[in-house]
């Protein structure tokens, strides 16, 4: 039994690498029916949406990336049978269910305003300068419901309205920019761009500089390490190798 499953998954892995090799039907125990772009497909249970699509014969060129839930490329919108709720998820992270209606959102159309972090004043009003639509937020919280990362999206949009960079940055830290919030927003806000702007401004002006880093940079600038550099530069390739490997072994890895 177990082996069967694994072998199945292997084939799927093959498939997902873009190699479209069919799965032996008799290996499959449970089948589910999904509707992709309105067309019905029989696919093996247990596949992720992305795998299922590929099984069904689609070749994903856009709308797929890391396949590990980090890149945010494979946004999916779906409804379960007999449910009124519109669900959002990452295709590589969600398993197919029987009677799923779904479609992929390869890209959420949104223009990112041009700004020069260096030139910006670190002031509350700047948010609305670049993202005036933030002021249209009605706190309906749909964005939060849509976020596959379970971020408090509405809260950081509201923080942006108040010009609170710190909150925006912290609340949006795990944003993967999948764009599902922006697709669902009735106020047509592009939350993830707002968040990114917020994080950048906070990173530049908000967080205090790490003093040791500062110190070290100064030291380097003052040429305190020039001697060491020269030594290393003078080494032959073999010597260099041994120094490196020795270093690797001695310094704890993190």
């Amino acid at each position, binding site marked *: 039994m177990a082996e069967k499953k694994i072998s199945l998954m292997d084939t799927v892995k093959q498939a997902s690498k873009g190699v479209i090799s069919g799965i032996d039907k008799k290996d499959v125990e449970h089948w589910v029916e999904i509707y992709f772009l309105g067309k019905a497909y029989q696919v093996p249970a247990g596949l992720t949406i992305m795998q299922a699509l590929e099984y069904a014969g689609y070749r994903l060129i856009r709308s797929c990336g890391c396949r590990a839930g980090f890149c945010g490329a494979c946004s999916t919108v779906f409804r379960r049978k007999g449910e009124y709720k519109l669900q959002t998820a990452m295709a590589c992270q969600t398993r197919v269910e029987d009677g799923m209606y779904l479609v992929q959102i390869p890209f959420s159309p949104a223009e990112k305003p041009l700004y020069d972090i260096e030139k910006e004043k670190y*002031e509350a*009003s*700047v948010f*609305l*300068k670049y993202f*005036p*639509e933030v*002021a*249209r937020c009605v706190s309906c919280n749909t964005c939060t419901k849509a976020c596959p990362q379970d971020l408090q999206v509405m809260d950081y949009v509201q923080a942006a*309205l*108040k010009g609170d960079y710190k909150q925006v940055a912290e609340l949006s830290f795990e944003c993967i920019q999948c764009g599902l919030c922006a697709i669902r927003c009735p106020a047509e806000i592009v939350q993830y761009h707002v968040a990114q702007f917020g994080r950048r401004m906070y990173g530049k002006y908000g967080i205090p500089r790490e003093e040791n880093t500062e110190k070290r940079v100064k030291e380097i600038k003052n040429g305190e390490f020039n001697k060491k550099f020269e030594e290393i530069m003078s080494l032959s390739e073999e010597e260099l190798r041994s120094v490196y490997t020795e270093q690797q072994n001695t310094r704890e890895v993190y």
Partner: protein
Amino acid sequence: MARKIVITSENVAFLKKISELSDQVITRCDQCGTCSGSCPMVEEMDITPAQIMRMVQLGQKEVMDTKAMWICASCFACTVRCPRGLDVSKVAEALRQVKLRQAIDYIDVNGIPDEEMERLPQIAIVSSFRKFTG
């Protein structure tokens, strides 16, 4: 040359729609003009608030092409004075909404210069969007 109005069932439908959106019995307005005299923006308007009420009473859709309904600042000066207890601001809002719900914005956000944007208080931007954009 006087304006000629033909009144059809469409006019009645329009009156009904605005009455429902605003939750006001617009036909109760007896055109005393108190709203117009109370309106701080009336000098800016192309037609007076009382005229808005009148045109809606007669179901004249042209009222939606007037500037007046957008000039209204929802200050409720008319509301607290109307001898018939009508809320004129609600009627103006209903008219604006009919347009906005057709995704016809009244102001162009990108048209507002950056320095103005930085100067305006949030409250101004938020509320103007609520009133001027769909």
